């Protein structure tokens, strides 16, 4: 009785989050985004008219077959690349036509990157790695140090601040990377196969960490091949040939099928 009630409460919570989505602010938005690669006479339409939105608090997985345009989409979402045509809005501002410096600022202020291969800077300590994003904002100082200590604690590595990346396990390195992605209070985290290099136990730990962060209002976009990883997200955006094939609500989908996918 009590157990059902508890489960029901959780379900209501989840439902509320998804159903209220229309009211939450849009923090990233694609408006008919195309990304074409010109290869001699051929034009590869890696993204071919994508419109989508990420709202505050979303946990979105992007899936699709190889070559469907996931990485291309991720690069544009991350401000590493620009659409050929169409608009990409971050926090309401069109960033698709910004120059290199301004786009760098968007990356540095609004986006937290998490990579498949962790991508910590080997010659720097954990603390120094954490401070890198703020360094480029000119915000390194006592405050940044306190923040780094707090986030390291948050991801369970409070005692490893002076270690070098290579002295840490893969899971630990990815925790540092997650902490680093949070250093600049980004609008959203952008994870590219964040667990691709980890064993399943560690993968679970990292995904649990994502769940832990969500109550703080963290927004997560994750690109993955792995259905198990995608399942942990609220929604999955399926790409096919550079277009949105479908947007699946993982919560209602499970509920509708009575728990059978």
């Amino acid at each position, binding site marked *: 009785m009590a157990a059902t009630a508890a489960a029901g409460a959780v379900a209501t919570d989840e439902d509320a989050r998804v159903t209220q989505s229309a009211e939450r602010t849009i923090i990233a938005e694609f408006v008919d985004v195309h990304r074409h690669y010109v290869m001699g006479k051929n034009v590869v339409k890696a993204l071919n008219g994508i419109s989508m939105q990420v709202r505050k608090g979303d946990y979105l997985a992007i899936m699709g077959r190889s070559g469907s345009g996931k990485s291309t989409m991720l*690069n544009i979402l*991350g401000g*590493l*690349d620009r659409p050929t045509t169409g608009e990409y809005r971050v926090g309401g501002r069109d960033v698709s036509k910004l120059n*290199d*410096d301004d786009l*760098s*600022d968007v*990356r*540095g*202020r609004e986006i937290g*990157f998490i*990579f498949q291969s962790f*991508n*910590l*800077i*080997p*010659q*720097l300590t954990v603390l120094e790695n954490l401070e*890198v*994003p703020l*360094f*480029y*904002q*000119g915000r*390194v*100082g006592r405050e940044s140090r306190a923040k780094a200590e707090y986030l390291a604690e948050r991801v369970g590595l409070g005692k490893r601040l002076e270690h070098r990346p290579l002295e840490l396990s893969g899971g630990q390195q990815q925790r540092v990377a997650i902490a*680093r992605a949070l250093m*600049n209070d980004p609008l959203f985290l952008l994870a590219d196969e964040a667990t691709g290099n980890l064993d399943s136990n560690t993968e679970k730990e990292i995904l649990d960490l994502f769940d832990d962060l969500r109550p703080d209002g963290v927004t997560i976009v994750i690109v993955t091949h792995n259905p198990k990883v995608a399942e942990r997200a609220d929604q999955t955006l399926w790409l096919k040939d550079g277009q949105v094939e479908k947007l699946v609500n993982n919560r209602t989908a499970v509920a509708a099928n009575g728990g059978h996918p």
Partner: protein
Amino acid sequence: MIADTMRMVKLGLKSLMLHKLRSCLTTAGILFGVASVIAMLAVGEGASAETLKQYREMGVTNVLLRSQKPEETQQSSASSMMSTLSYGLFYQEADRIQNLLPQATVVRVREFQRPVMRGENWGQTMIIGTEVNFLEVTNMKVHEGRWLTELDQQRQANVCVLGERLARMLFPLENPVGKTILVGIEDRFEIIGVLEYQGRAASPNGTTLDQCGFIPMTSSRRRFGDTVRNPLINRWEQVELHEIKVKLPSTAEVEGAAAVLDQMLQGEQVHRNKKDYEITVPLELLRKAEATERMFNLVLAVIASISLLVGDIGIMNVMLATVTERTREIGIRRALGAKKKHIVQQFLVEAGVLSALGGLVGVGLGMLVPYGIEKYFKQPTDIQAPHVMLAFGISAAVGVVFGLYPAWRAANMDPVEALRHE
């Protein structure tokens, strides 16, 4: 700002520590370049400074006429075997020079070796018979007592002024002024003064002024005559004046005066066809030495530039390799918000740190080498601050310039490509 710079330098050092050996070797290129430039310049400067000093001491407004023994033809040597050999400058020639160049100060000089003795202290030294103006022309000063006067000349007085070293040899404990010394076998001279220590190079006669004794020209003539026995060839030589020093009011008149003097002496019967005098123009020597020095410095500068260039090419090479190796890092930094200028800065600082480190150690080594040369080879050297700064500055600046291209390459990588690297 300063904190940021410190951070960048620290980061640069950390990145360089990734490849210690490679960084050290690159630094060594700069190091030896800078060190060799500083050492070469110091040694060159020391050698030329010594020469220049010597010429300056001879007096830049002076023209020096010196008697020299003419080269003997066989016939003349045979015919004059028994007779006294007479050559060189004459007393009256000094007067004629004075008439020719009324603005000049003309001083006669006679030199002869004599033993001098004071009690138990004695030695063979150079006695110089000269005139009152000698002091002014040679730019020396009296330390104690007084210098020779016209009255001493007129009286042919037996008075003597001692060079500082000679005074110390003869009077190690007492004040020489007022005491007498024995010059030669029988002539007693009263000491009337002692000169200041000069520390100049030896004159053509082989002694330094500090070792000489100075007596009135008239006295020297009367006591010792004009003939000297040359002990080497056991022959009597007659030389009236060993030297005539002519001091002109300004350097502008020196060359003209030298030409006039040469012409005058050439015109005289006694000197014709017999090179028995020599004209030395310290100013000319000085200018030649300075020209040589400039040439030398130019050659050094070229060599220096080449060796520094080689070191800096090494830096560029290493920075290019570094940039390629750290493509991934560049991608990460760009993803985390680094602008192009940040990446340029980072690699420039690294290049700068490499070249500055090399430069610093190079300066240290470059200053040590001349020190060693001075200590063990007794060669004068002269390390000049501008040279040190120049060598260091050039190496550091060119290091940064050569770091520009690799840094520019790093900054202009496509972040997406960079992240995909490896």
